[in-house]
């Protein structure tokens, strides 16, 4: 029987689901191997009966946590889809600020205290709330990686993510190294799988797939000096996908 899959979104831009919706003609092949029972970007049907749940977005409110736990209970396999779900994503940037101040700065003096929709806590990744079986990182996700994931699951193979930095893919594509242009690229410490899409188009890696498990720390200062790179630039970049959680330079 074809696995039944459902998509769910939490705090995020829904851009990862859009990547899948944009698969267009391949969607037709996709539904030959999986039953999409819930995916509001492409269909208005919804069923609570599913095997695989793709969860997009970070978790921001108590009501989200309840909903997520309910999804977990129904799903055999739960997949975190995209950086918000996998890592907390850019939503986590707000965790450095006080929640009340944030609400005030966004919504002004509107009386929202008793409104559960605005009852937010610090942004969390999905695995801070429930067990996650697989991760498909990226901001947004890479369609091919999503495809490979579905193929793996459908053919009984364990989906695997590369455990090496973006540089590996970047070198194979023969891109001139952005460090040589004096630009800070997070490629050397970011998990690969995107086929170095940003550096291949001349933009430094911003680390959307998350930091390596054991990034090298000893050489950072030396590298920055050699390539004349600004520390503040680094700080901004690593905060974007919360690399700061893993300290790789002594402050």
């Amino acid at each position, binding site marked *: 029987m074809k696995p039944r899959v459902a998509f769910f979104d939490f705090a995020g831009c829904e851009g990862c689901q859009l990547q899948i919706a944009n698969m267009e003609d391949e969607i037709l092949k996709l539904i030959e191997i999986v039953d999409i029972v819930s995916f509001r970007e492409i269909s208005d049907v919804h069923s609570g009966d599913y095997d695989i749940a793709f969860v997009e977005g970070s978790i921001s409110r108590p009501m989200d946590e309840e909903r997520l736990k309910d999804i977990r209970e129904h799903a055999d396999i739960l997949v975190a889809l995209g950086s918000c779900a996998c890592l907390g994503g850019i939503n986590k940037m707000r965790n450095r600020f006080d929640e009340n101040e944030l609400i005030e700065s966004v919504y002004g003096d509107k009386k929202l205290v008793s409104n559960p929709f605005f009852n937010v806590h610090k942004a969390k990744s999905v695995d801070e709330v429930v067990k996650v079986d697989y991760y498909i990182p990226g901001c947004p996700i890479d369609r091919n990686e999503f495809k490979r994931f579905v193929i793996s699951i459908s*053919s009984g193979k364990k989906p695997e993510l590369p455990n090496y930095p973006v*540089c590996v893919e970047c*070198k194979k594509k023969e891109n*001139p190294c952005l460090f040589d242009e004096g630009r800070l690229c997070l490629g050397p410490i970011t998990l690969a799988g995107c086929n170095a899409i940003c550096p291949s188009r001349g933009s430094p890696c911003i680390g959307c797939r998350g930091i*390596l498990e054991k990034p090298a720390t000893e*050489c950072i200062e030396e590298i920055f000096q050699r390539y004349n790179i600004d520390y503040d630039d680094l700080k901004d970049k690593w905060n974007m996908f919360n690399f700061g959680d893993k300290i790789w330079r002594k402050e």
Partner: protein
Amino acid sequence: MNGEIYRLEKDDFLAFVNNLINSFETIGVKEKKGRFVFSHLESAAELRLDHDVTILPPKKFFLPPYEKMIKFNVGEQKGELLGDNAKRVIIGVHPYDIVALKQMDMVYMEGRPDELYKQRRENTIIIGSDILRVNDFSFASSLGTHVVKDGFDLMLTDLGKKVIIEIGSERGRKILMDYARNIKEASDQDIKDVENHRKALPDRYKVKLDIEKDQIPFLLMDVFEHPLWEEESKKCLQCGSCTLVCPTCYCYDIRDEISLTLEDGERIRTWDSCLLPDFTKIASGEIFRKDKSERYRHRFYRKGLYIPMRYNFIACVGCGRCITACIPKIADPANVFNTLSRRKHESKGKLVYRMIEGVEAESHILPEPAVIRRIEPLTENEKLFEIELLSRDSFHFEPGQFVEVSVFGVGEAPISISSPPSGDNRFELVIRKVGNLTNRMHSMKEGEKLGIRGPLGKGFRVEDLEGKDLLFVAGGIGIVPLRSLIKYVLSKDNRPRFGKIYILYGARTPKDMLFMDEMEKWKEVDDVEIRLSVDTCPEGMKWNHSVGVVTTLFNEIEIQNPKETVSLVVGPPVMYKFVIKCLEDAGIKDTNILVSLERRMKCGLGRCGHCQINGIYVCKEGPVFRYSDIRNLPEVFQ
């Protein structure tokens, strides 16, 4: 210069290149954002012969970074080798890259050639170019690779208004004659100009090796335990860039990719890097070169010792690509070798080993079709499969050899043969459910098709065991390859050729013990002693034998004639040290201890690099080794 040498005026040379572009897939050096790459030429005007070095070497046209090797159908398990018939011309290859290609040829075309590499190599014309601009990090002149005498079809020296062309092969000569006009024989002055240019090159290199290149292997033998490995590798980002841009690195990974229909797909070969943490990882999750400093060191040892011992060349051509690509600038072979030579006295340990005779694999890239004839569940996690090769009537192998089992759509895995040589085309495999392929095997049924490559590697040489007492020591699934030899030795015809037989076998719990019924039969054979143990016996399980690790069984036997006893040991990596100590205590010589080692044998052909232990390949020189041959290899029993 003493070959056939011609001269073209610049305009005629450009016309020659344009003619090539019109007739062949023509690749040349082009500029890319201030750096250089080998890429398809649209017109001769794009060609740059003043490049210092390209980001990637021309290797990418022979061993592409992403290569579709086999096209397959999942349902029928049918595969077809994908060729590449394109006739290519590559223009602007520097001498060091030509040397590197010659090295690649030895790796990929020696012995049983790699069909895909060979086809590309034979279909490609190499037009070299003398170095006009020296790369800041290159030290080619120290290795003598700044000039080259052969390995090209044509060699260009761009002297501004004129281009001097040396003929390197008959097909090079033909292409020049057919596609160039106004060809003139080079004058004495032309030749002198080229010679002067080449003579002046060495002085233009900023980086130099302080030692003779022939001394590099000897230096490395002395500095295996040098503090430099730790010092430098601390800074290593483990990005693999140094190996990925290297013209002499040739390790690769293989994986299957299938289409969304799940019906067809391709077996892919991609560049891999020994610097990456998962390079040696096997299905059970074990990693063999765990420490970053070990991986960092391994690369230099491959360049300067392991490959020189195997192929007799230094596997570095001094192009400077690795150091250009390395962000923390720790990948520089010249700097590392120079530093080591200066600080040699700081080393705390040497690495001395001898090459071991290997076996030329009886295998190509494409697996042979086979079918599962019989499946027998053995334990919760192990099943026995009887396989029949459909492509031949007989399958000759020696006990201890392995095959690569292939299921198109899933991949390949190395599996030891578990049955004795039979002469026909059937053999048995015992498969533990541990990774993607073995999981798939467990869900397969009798009559289903798969692929086999092999037999691979070196097994137990039965001739060497004749007349000896044999002491088998098996830990866990280690009984599987040993069973092949045990059954061979215990067969009626062969039994008289061997002395007393001891079999010591330990597993985790009674339900993990394999072939208990067969053990009963083996016991009945003359002069066979069998001792069994389990690590633990959970309550409620029946067990009439010993409890404890396999080494406790040594107390239960008396080895009557240790000098004439050969021990055959197979088990999990952790077991060897302890068992070998017991054997040596019992007086068995290290030349009489044979072990079979587990590593990530991916290609089985001594090329992909994953199963390497220091300088030896487990898939080629093993998996069965004489302990005396490997005991000094630090990476053997980590």
